[in-house]
């Protein structure tokens, strides 16, 4: 009987056969294009054809001041967006974790920005940011903060901040929900013991909740950094990377080069930089995950 069972769980050929369709699909639609992107980055590919040009695209890209500016901008944009998502998400999770009436409804109401297609949510933000007729400019004008119409997406600095806020809006629900799930996974007896020892609410949060959910906070910061780095639609719809390049992040620049100017080779070189950075993030993330898993299995 044991022999028979062993054969039930160890039929490697069957295991591979079941995975094969999904694996082939990924290879064709994701893995091969990744390799093709690397190849294209060494050519001057355009609609007219392609020739091998060596490191030409990379040399041009790395020596251009504009590109260095884009890299810096990408990380500044990311830093503010991710930090805000984590801070607002943590505060949101603490609020929704409070045992009060209505919390189950609020938990559902947090999710819409994540569920709704970004392209549609951004139409709402376009209206909110409208300089003449939008509610934000309206409140500003009526309270006297603004002395006239103000196009939030029309000026370099305000466009930069406005796209970050819209990105935070899209990303916060996911962070909140993950933090909330983590908080509910903290063993209750820890709190009860602390309560009996006379620990205040504040103490219980900083000495129990926070340390207990730290692994999730770290995981979420990395995941959120990856998602934010990849953020394309939000900026594209709100500003298309403008005004005068003020919101052009690496992803936007890649898209513009490749499909705006049809300079596939130059676009591909930028895509390779994106890939390298993403691989670094992913490496960090997976190493971290492996460490956390190890820790859990040791306990």
């Amino acid at each position, binding site marked *: 009987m044991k022999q028979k069972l062993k054969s039930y769980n160890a039929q490697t050929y069957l295991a591979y056969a079941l995975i094969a369709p999904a694996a082939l699909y990924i290879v064709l639609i994701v893995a091969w294009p990744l390799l093709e992107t690397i190849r294209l980055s060494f050519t001057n590919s355009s609609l007219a054809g392609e020739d091998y040009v060596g490191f030409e695209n990379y040399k041009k890209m790395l020596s251009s001041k504009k590109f260095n500016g884009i890299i810096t901008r990408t990380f500044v944009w990311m830093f503010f967006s991710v930090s805000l998502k984590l801070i607002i998400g943590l505060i949101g999770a603490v609020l929704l974790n409070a045992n009060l009436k209505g919390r189950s409804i609020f938990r559902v109401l947090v999710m819409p920005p994540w569920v709704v297609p*970004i392209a*549609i949510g951004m139409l709402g933000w376009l209206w909110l940011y409208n300089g003449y007729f939008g509610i934000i400019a309206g409140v500003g004008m009526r309270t006297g903060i603004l002395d006239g119409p103000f196009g939030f997406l029309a000026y370099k600095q305000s466009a930069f901040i406005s796209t970050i806020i819209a990105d935070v809006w899209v990303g916060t629900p996911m962070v909140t929900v993950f933090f909330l799930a983590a908080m509910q996974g903290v063993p209750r007896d820890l709190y009860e013991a602390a309560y009996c020892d006379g620990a205040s609410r504040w103490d219980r949060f900083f000495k129990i909740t926070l340390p207990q959910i730290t692994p999730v906070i770290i995981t979420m910061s990395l995941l959120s950094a990856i998602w934010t780095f990849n953020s394309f639609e939000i900026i594209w719809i709100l500003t298309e990377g403008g005004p005068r390049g003020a919101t052009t992040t690496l992803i936007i620049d890649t898209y513009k080069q490749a499909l705006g100017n049809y300079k596939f080779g130059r676009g591909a070189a930028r895509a390779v930089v994106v890939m390298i950075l*993403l691989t670094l993030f*992913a490496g960090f993330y997976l190493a971290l995950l492996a460490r956390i898993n190890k820790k859990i299995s040791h306990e």
Partner: protein
Amino acid sequence: MNKYNTFEKILIYSGILVFMTFILLPFVEMFYASLRPLDHLFRSPYQFYSDDLSFWAYREMWNTVPMLGRYIFNSFFLATSVAVLTLIFVIPAAYSYARFKFPAKNTSLYVLLAINMFSGAVLLIPLYKVLRTFGLLNSYQAMIVPGVAFLIPTSIWLLKSYFEKIPIDLEEAAFVDGASRVQILRHIIAPLSTPGLVVVGIYAFIGAYAQQFLFAITFNQKKEYMPIPSGLYEFIGYQSVKWNEMMAASLVGIAPVLLVFIFLQKYIVEGLTAGAVKN
């Protein structure tokens, strides 16, 4: 444990109010704008009060953008096809990961996670070439084919965790009693994993509904295949934007996903967070 006193309650509720305002303001304002006549919207500064709210825009939008119905249908059709195809590819793979031991199992699972981190935007150039080679540009497939690829990794992880919850003893007992693999699949796995399949299917549907924009603007130029997000931009005219109708159409466009989500949110949130929180 100690209850909250009145002061703490007020503090928490006002915190929730501020938080929820940030999250919901765009939707509330979209809905409000959809009810107001266009000339009220075009007053500066913003007017908080309108006395003639109506659902007029919800009727007029079908005339302004005659293809609107078609776009909504397309969105549904695309999202459903992507979800069904994703399930077809994912079910055997997830089952295999949940049940078998084989070389490179963990490595390949992590590779899947890593793939998840590459956005479609990076792969657009070669994808464009792949689709052109197969003659799939400007068709439904142009949006379905890449859509499925980017939903497979997460769906495998999600469904794997559902399959793992089905006790393997049941299968082993049936196997020892002489049941064939097909019989086991039909009589044990299929009925027990239905809730998991529904959740993963809904996840894929919502994901597919959300991801339509990028692939649609890049791989498809034909109006008759456009999903709703790209169709909405037709409300932007040469002279001015018909904001009220655009907002009305947006809300009609997102209503189905929102409804599906609200009914199944508990399962979706549980499924998604289970992996990250307990793993």
